[in-house]
């Protein structure tokens, strides 16, 4: 594919159903009412010159290049701001228009440097293009007048290079405001403004440099800039790409579509793709810019093995490594039994890779000891939504948010963790939707530019179920139930039981106030607002799931939504915001120990036989070990070998010391990853993985959208991850043979009813597709449960509030909760190896001034955080976003050891760890914690790679 230039229609598409027909330059064109003349012209195949218009933002009408003539009207209206009307006759070219346009360009160029040949945007500059289009040959004003480009000019402002990824060169700015508008309309951050007026007008990041400003480095301004004023540093360095590869971002669960712009096999830049169903051309700092880790020097490119973890690694051939791993697994199974090994699939890998790993475990190892990192994030979502609604997935497509009147955001921090979707939310909120936030912290969404939550229910960590029950109590007791909806769609008996339970006085907001700490009146107000809708949607994240009652809370939300009739159409629903790129897919692909792809229980004979038949092997009908169970079994001595693909269990799972003890108890730990991650410190075999840019496959995002991942370059490690799993399986004696991941998808489609219609061909044609995709829905299913619930009747589940056993005591009087930040991703393996560190170089402990004062802690002090599981030290940050009694940290840096402190408590139904509630004490520290000191040494010892002297 050559370099892909998407058509820019100039103004956004109109959503009107009504059509108008008009005539543009003699061509008849029919467009939806509300379409601009500019867009209609593009539809008619006529392009009108423009500079300030681009179709990702509303018409602005400032550049005055797009003027046209309309028969029967005076003057020369701008085609971007003039709407098509039936029977209009529009002329886009005339001598008068040509003269005006040339005159406008002459003015533009009179204040623009003439360094085209050496300019970073050379070859991709709209100003240059327009000068060409209007035939500008002379600037009669000369260049000695007032200007912004001459260094001697009082108006000259030097280049701002503060952002690590792009530069801002005011001298080249044409003040079209596209960046300012992109920041407002596309991103919703309002970091940029036009400073001064008239000829003084200058784009400014609020009067400071970009890095110090509110800018979140999403790249929308860079993309919007028609000149080189805002431009990627990578383009400045390398030049323009020559071909594009459309692929899917490998960061969060939004699943943005990107164009990788390439020079040969080297990426020049990643540009969000306009046709991306999830992102519609928007991006965040991670997907847009933080791809440098793919070529980071830390990447391991050769397979390695070692006998003991204290040995240095020895680089070996692929064959040797695979054979070694296989023989070790066989040895262990022979010695300790078939169930003594297992594996972990990754939510960061493709569907095809995940599918192969669980297949290898079920068919190759012959047990069901497969699990995935979704265990530690969204396993309660699967359990809860399946139990109540019948599908282990969110109900909506992302775009549904544009029809939402009331957003209920629970335990999620979208602006940091799902920034691109957060932009859609913000745009809807700015347009007037109401917002309820349930979160112990004052997340950004509670109060940000032009947005203020109508309710912020700042509850104590661990009391979600108390909160959801009291919200439901208000619905039930104040006559706010959607009676007709319930009668028609839900199970009567279950509903009646639930209603009687919820109506109990113990579930009232007043009674629960002592648990949640939230004034009952606020809870009542929020409940009424949610019930009123008309379209109310729940969006939630790990603040819901990562609790001892994570599954209960998921069911509680589904109950609430059903009770108010808020499932089954646009604008409503219960929507998990998935943490990683392929959490949904990893779950869909049968990574969990108790279910096959498509969420079918291993004990179901018909399903098992289907797989036995397809895979040609007898399968185990009992569920296997879940990740925490594997650790327990390892410590107990019955679990001895593990194959870990793309997950860093050592850093990401709770109670690190327990995990590391478990890993240390195993005889064969095989890690497949890009880097020598924390888990690899305990590994015996290291299989280098490849990045998303180096392989084909698919990711499934939080809205069930299956999007293609396309190979932009050959695997730097020599093998794609699916090939590695295949080789290992073959070496284990269970043959697998696929020529291409598309064949794996074909197998998945054959064996999984909800994927029946999915194929690479369809993905190429449609761009992406949302499952279920089958004969009933060949083009996929953006909204679930439209004509009734997947499970038949909606199932109300009784959600008793059972307080967690993790309680504050005199010794551990504070609650620690954890979360993410925008610039870093998860365990940080990727983002820490990019310039994103300028925003977040270390994890800090946030605490309320009151708690800090009490302990004599000042901002920046080194503090120790101690729980009954362990102790770490971090630097403190005093923050009023916290409520007193609650402290917070992120977990992006391995050396922080956030999970040294978290405990083994977990969700009762799924064992999803209770990361969000840990009782701790915080005090001033003089030095780093013992654990950190020890770990630092351990890391040096266990990550040595074969020195020539030690050799063989």
């Amino acid at each position: 594919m050559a370099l892909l230039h998407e058509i820019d229609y100039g103004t956004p598409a109109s959503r009107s159903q009504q059509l108008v027909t008009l005539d543009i330059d003699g061509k008849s064109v029919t467009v939806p009412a509300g379409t601009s003349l500019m867009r209609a012209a593009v539809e008619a195949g006529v392009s009108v010159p423009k500079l300030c218009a681009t179709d990702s933002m509303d018409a602005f009408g400032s550049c005055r290049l797009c003027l046209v003539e309309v028969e029967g009207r005076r003057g020369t209206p701008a085609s971007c701001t003039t709407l098509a009307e039936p029977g209009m006759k529009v002329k886009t070219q005339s001598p008068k228009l040509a003269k005006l346009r040339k005159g406008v360009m002459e003015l533009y160029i009179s204040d623009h440097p003439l360094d085209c040949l050496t300019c970073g945007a050379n070859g991709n500059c709209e100003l240059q293009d327009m000068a060409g289009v209007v035939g500008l040959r002379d600037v009669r004003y000369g260049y000695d007048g007032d200007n912004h480009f001459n260094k001697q000019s009082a108006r000259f402002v030097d280049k701002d290079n503060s952002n690590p990824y792009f530069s801002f060169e005011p001298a080249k700015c044409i003040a079209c405001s596209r960046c300012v508008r992109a920041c407002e309309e596309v991103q919703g951050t309002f970091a940029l403004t036009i400073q001064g007026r008239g000829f003084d007008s200058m784009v400014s990041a609020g009067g400071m440099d970009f890095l110090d400003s509110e800018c979140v480095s999403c790249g929308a301004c860079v993309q919007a800039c028609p000149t080189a004023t805002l431009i990627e540093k990578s383009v400045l360095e390398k030049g323009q790409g020559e071909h594009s590869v459309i692929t899917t971002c490998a960061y969060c669960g939004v699943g943005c579509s990107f164009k990788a712009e390439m020079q040969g096999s080297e990426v020049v830049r990643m540009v969000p793709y306009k046709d991306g169903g999830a992102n519609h051309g928007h991006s965040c700092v991670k997907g847009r810019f933080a791809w440098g880790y793919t070529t980071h020097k830390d990447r391991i490119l050769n397979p390695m093995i070692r006998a003991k973890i204290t040995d240095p690694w020895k680089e070996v051939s692929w064959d040797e490594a695979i054979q070694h791993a296989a023989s070790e697994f066989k040895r262990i199974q022979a010695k300790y039994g078939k169930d003594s090994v297992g594996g972990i699939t990754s939510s960061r890998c493709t569907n095809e890779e995940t599918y192969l790993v669980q297949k290898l475990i079920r068919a190759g190892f012959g047990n069901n000891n497969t699990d995935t990192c979704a265990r530690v994030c969204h396993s309660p979502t699967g359990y809860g939504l399946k139990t109540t609604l019948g599908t282990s997935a969110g109900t909506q497509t992302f775009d549904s948010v544009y029809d939402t009147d009331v957003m209920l955001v629970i335990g999620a921090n979208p602006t940091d963790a799902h920034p691109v979707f957060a932009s859609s939310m913000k745009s809807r909120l700015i347009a007037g939707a109401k917002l309820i936030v349930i979160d112990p912290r004052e997340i950004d969404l509670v109060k940000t530019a032009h947005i203020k939550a109508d309710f912020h229910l700042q509850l104590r960590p661990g009391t979600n179920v108390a909160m959801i029950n009291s919200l439901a109590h208000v619905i039930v007791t104040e006559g706010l139930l959607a009676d007709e909806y319930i009668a028609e769609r839900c199970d009567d008996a279950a509903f009646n039981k639930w209603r009687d339970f919820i109506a109990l006085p113990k579930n009232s907001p007043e009674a629960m106030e002592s648990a949640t700490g939230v004034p009952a009146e606020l809870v009542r107000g929020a409940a009424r607002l949610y019930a009123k809708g008309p379209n109310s949607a729940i969006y939630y994240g790990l603040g819901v799931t990562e609790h001892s009652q994570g599954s209960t809370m998921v069911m509680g939300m589904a109950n609430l939504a059903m009770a108010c009739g808020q499932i089954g159409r646009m604008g409503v629903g219960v929507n998990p915001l998935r943490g990683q790129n392929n959490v949904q897919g990893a779950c869909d692909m049968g990574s969990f120990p108790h279910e096959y792809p498509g969420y079918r229980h291993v004990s179901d004979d018909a399903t098992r036989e289907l797989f036995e038949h397809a895979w040609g092997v007898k399968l185990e009908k009992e569920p296997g070990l879940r990740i925490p169970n594997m650790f327990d079994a390892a410590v107990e001595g019955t679990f001895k070998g593990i194959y870990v693909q793309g997950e860093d269990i050592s850093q990401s799972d709770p109670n690190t010391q327990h995990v590391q003890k478990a890993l240390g108890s195993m005889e064969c730990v095989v890690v497949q990853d890009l880097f020598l991650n924390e888990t690899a410190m305990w590994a015996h075999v290291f299989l280098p993985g490849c990045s998303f840019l180096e392989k084909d496959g698919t990711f499934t995002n939080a809205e069930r959208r299956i999007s293609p991942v396309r190979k932009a370059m050959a695997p730097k490690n020599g093998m794609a991850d699916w090939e590695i799993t295949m080789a290992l399986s073959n070496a284990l004696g269970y043959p697998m043979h696929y020529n291409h991941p598309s064949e794996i998808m074909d197998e998945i489609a054959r064996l999984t009813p909800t994927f029946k219609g999915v194929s690479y061909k369809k993905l190429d044609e449609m761009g992406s597709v949302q499952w279920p995709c089958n004969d009933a829905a060949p083009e996929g299913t953006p909204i679930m449960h439209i004509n009734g619930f997947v499970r038949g009747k909606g199932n109300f589940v009784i959600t008793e509030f059972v307080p967690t056993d993790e309680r504050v005591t005199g010794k551990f009087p504070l609650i620690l909760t954890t979360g993410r930040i925008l610039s870093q991703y998860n365990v940080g393996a990727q983002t820490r190896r990019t310039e994103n560190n300028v925003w977040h170089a270390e994890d800090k402990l946030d605490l309320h001034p009151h708690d800090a004062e009490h302990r004599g802690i000042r901002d920046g002090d080194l503090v120790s955080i101690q729980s009954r599981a362990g102790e770490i030290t971090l630097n403190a940050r005093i923050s009023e976003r916290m409520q007193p009694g609650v402290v917070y940290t992120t977990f992006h840096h391995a050396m922080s050891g956030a999970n040294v402190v978290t405990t083994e408590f977990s969700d009762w139904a799924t064992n999803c760890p209770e990361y969000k509630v840990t009782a701790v004490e915080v005090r001033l520290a003089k030095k780093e914690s013992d654990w950190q000191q020890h770990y630092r040494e351990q890391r040096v010892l266990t990550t040595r790679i074969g020195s020539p002297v030690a050799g063989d």
Partner: protein
Amino acid sequence: MVHMANQIALNFSAYPREEAIGHVAKHLKDFWEPRMRKQLHAYVAQGGAELHELVKEAEKRLK
């Protein structure tokens, strides 16, 4: 193990007793690996001192 089992019981405890026992038993069957169930049986055999009453009842149905 005991903590996990008791948590399951507590979360079903608001259901009528008979129904609750059924839910607990099904949950243990659907999600617990045989090794864990074996530990449970062994613990009950030793008296099951710390176990929630619903778990004890459910355990009987798993045999």
